[in-house]
Structure formats: C-alpha cells, structure tokens
C-alpha cells in the first residue's frame, strides 16, 4: 500500500478512535476514579490505559472497547496500588506517626482501603446497577469470582457503612 494511503487510513482510524474514546470517557473516568489509589490522578490512569491499548489495537478494531479499557485500567490501578503499598510500608518505617498523611475520617476512607478489584465490583454493582453476570463479562472474570469478591468487599467495610446496603 502506498505510504499516502496508509497515512490516510491511519488518520481515519485515529478519528474513529477519538470518537469512540470521547463517548466512553465519562464512564472510564468515573471507573478510574473509583479504582485508582488516592495518590493517582484518575485521568493519568485513563491516559495510561488508553496509551497501552492503542499500542496494540485501534479502538475501532476491538469488539468491546469499553470492556477492554475497563480491564486495562483495573490492572494498572492494581499495579499502582501494589507499588504504593510497598512505598508506604518503607515510608512508615522511616517516619513517625505525626507525619502520616491526613485522612478524612469518613466513608471514603473505608472504601479506599479495599483492593481495586473489590472497589470496581462494588461500584459496578451499587452505582451502575450491573448484575454479577454483566460485571463478570465486563471484567473478564467468572460470575462466581465476582460474587465472592463482592461478598468479601462488603465484609471488609465497617458495619456502619454496609448496614443499609445489604
């Protein structure tokens, strides 16, 4: 294929991808805000996920771009969280109690203690209203694994927070 046609095709792909991304962005951004560690900007996570996806596929070539991006974002969030936990442990050994990061003593703090996949499932179930089957399909897991992880997440939340949610 001549270079001119290939560049034209690439530009068309990019335009189509931009349109797909613009449509998905509000959902991706909210999902990233839920699963990202507090220190990570949700938009950075979305950008990272998009970048990694585009390196392998155009969004228009994916059968379910939304599910693909959700999974990439969730994996990135889990990786970030693991890295930050290692750093926090190292930092806590160096610092005194007084230097702990200020926290807001409320429900968000409870939620932020949960691992990213558990937060993702609670969000998709409670806010988005998805069934376990739909969540499983979206995140590429078995329905049973989703149900189990959701139960575990609820069990980890304080009594006050989950009392009227179950």
């Amino acid at each position, binding site marked *: 294929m001549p*270079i001119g046609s*290939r*560049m034209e095709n*690439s*530009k068309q792909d*990019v335009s189509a*991808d*931009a349109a797909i*991304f*613009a449509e998905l*962005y*509000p959902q991706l*951004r*909210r999902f990233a*805000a*839920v699963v990202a560690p*507090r*220190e*990570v*900007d*949700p*938009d*950075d996570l*979305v*950008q990272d996920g*998009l*970048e990694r996806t*585009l*390196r392998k596929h155009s969004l228009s070539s994916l059968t379910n771009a939304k599910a693909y991006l959700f999974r990439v974002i969730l994996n990135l969030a889990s990786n970030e969280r693991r*890295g*930050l936990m*290692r*750093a926090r442990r*190292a*930092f806590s050994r*160096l*610092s005194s109690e*007084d*230097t*702990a990061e*200020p*926290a*807001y*003593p*409320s*429900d*968000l703090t*409870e*939620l932020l203690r949960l691992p990213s996949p558990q*937060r993702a499932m*609670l*969000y998709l179930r*409670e*806010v988005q209203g998805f069934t376990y089957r739909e969540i499983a399909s979206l995140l590429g897991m078995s329905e049973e694994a989703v149900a189990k992880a959701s139960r575990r997440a609820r069990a980890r939340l304080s009594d*006050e*927070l*989950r*009392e*009227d*949610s179950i």
Partner: protein
Amino acid sequence: MNRLHSALEGLASRGTPRGADEIFSDATQSMGSPTSEALVRIDQGDEIMVSSTVSRRQYPAWLMFAAAFGVVLIVGLAITLVVRPTGDTGRDVAGNNTASSVVPGPTLPPSDNVPMTVPAGSDLSYYSYLPDLHLGWRAAEDGNTDLCWKTASDEGCESDLFYAPDTVIIPNGNHVIVLTRPALGGETPTEAVVTFSNGETANEAFTTPSGIAIAFARVEVPDGVTVTSASAN
C-alpha cells in the same frame, strides 16, 4: 440512595476531569501516533513512528514519598522553632500541631478523639479538631453523611460534602471558623474568602492540622454585620 452508594458516587466524581480530547491527544502524542504527523519515510515505503514526548504528571512513588518526608521534616522544624508560642497563650489541639495554637474562643473539654460515623439518630462521638471546635460524623436519613460541629456555645450539622470551593461556616463568638475539604485529586485550597452582609469581603489563609484532611480559617466578623457566604480558593 444508601451510604455505600453515596460513598462510591463520591469516589467516582473525585477530582476535575481533564476531558476526552486532551487525554486522547496526550496519549497519542506520547506514543508517537500518526496524529503527531511525525511519520518518517525510510527506504522503500517503510515508516517509523517518532514519538514526541508528552510529560505525564507522574513521578516514581519513592521520589514522591522522599520529597513529602523532606517537606514534613522542614515544616515540623519550622513549627517547632518559629510558630509554636513560648508562653501559655493557647493549648495544643489534642496532639494536632496546628499553626494556629492560640485559641480565640472558649475551649471545650477534650473529647475521645475517635472519629467515627455513627448511625442516623445516634449520639455523636466528637473529635477534638481544635480546642474550641469539635467535629463528629453521623449518617443522615437520606443515606449521606453529615458533619456535625460543636463549639462552647453552639452546635449544628451540615452535609459533609464540603469539598473546596464549598465550605462550612461555624459561628464562634466574634469570628467564624471556615472549614473546607481538599477535593480528592484536586488542589489544596489556600485561602478562605468570606463575604459579609454589608458586601465587603475578607480573606484568610487556610491551615490544615496534621492527621486530618480538613482545613480551617478563622475570620473576624466586624460589629453589626453577618457572614453571608464563604468559599475556599
């Protein structure tokens, strides 16, 4: 809406979105996509993609923590050596080293210092936020959470969704205490802007006590006027 739903919703809407266009553009530029128009032809129609670097606001975690540790050390030393009063002009805030140790209002007896959200209708468990201001959290009937406050002369409750620029205004004698929460993922507010009933405004810097993500500013209220609004910048 239950409390879990409300908390998840709060998490999902944290920070200020940069927008789809900007993120897509940054992503494609940083990976050297054809949109950067940086396709370079070599030899027989082959092409390589030349990436143009777009910096992301991300630094190694160890570097961020090392920097934060340094800042905390410097600030701690500064507070110890400069700000902390030498005389008995005030009282520490239940272990919180606030820059504003001098207490203008009547103080309250120290509380349990156990911040927790109690169920709707239950008695509050207060947290000694300042010597003259205690805070507590209670589930509201609608499933959200209320921030409740108590001074020596007054008490009240408001929604705890007072992320900057929103504030909570607490009357306390001849001044008001303005509270705000730094928006998650957003910038920490630095200044309270209070508007009085006569149309005049007053600005005061926020202070954030260590250990809790709520900033406060004390603003004097001139005689004969009331505070009509306050925002956090």
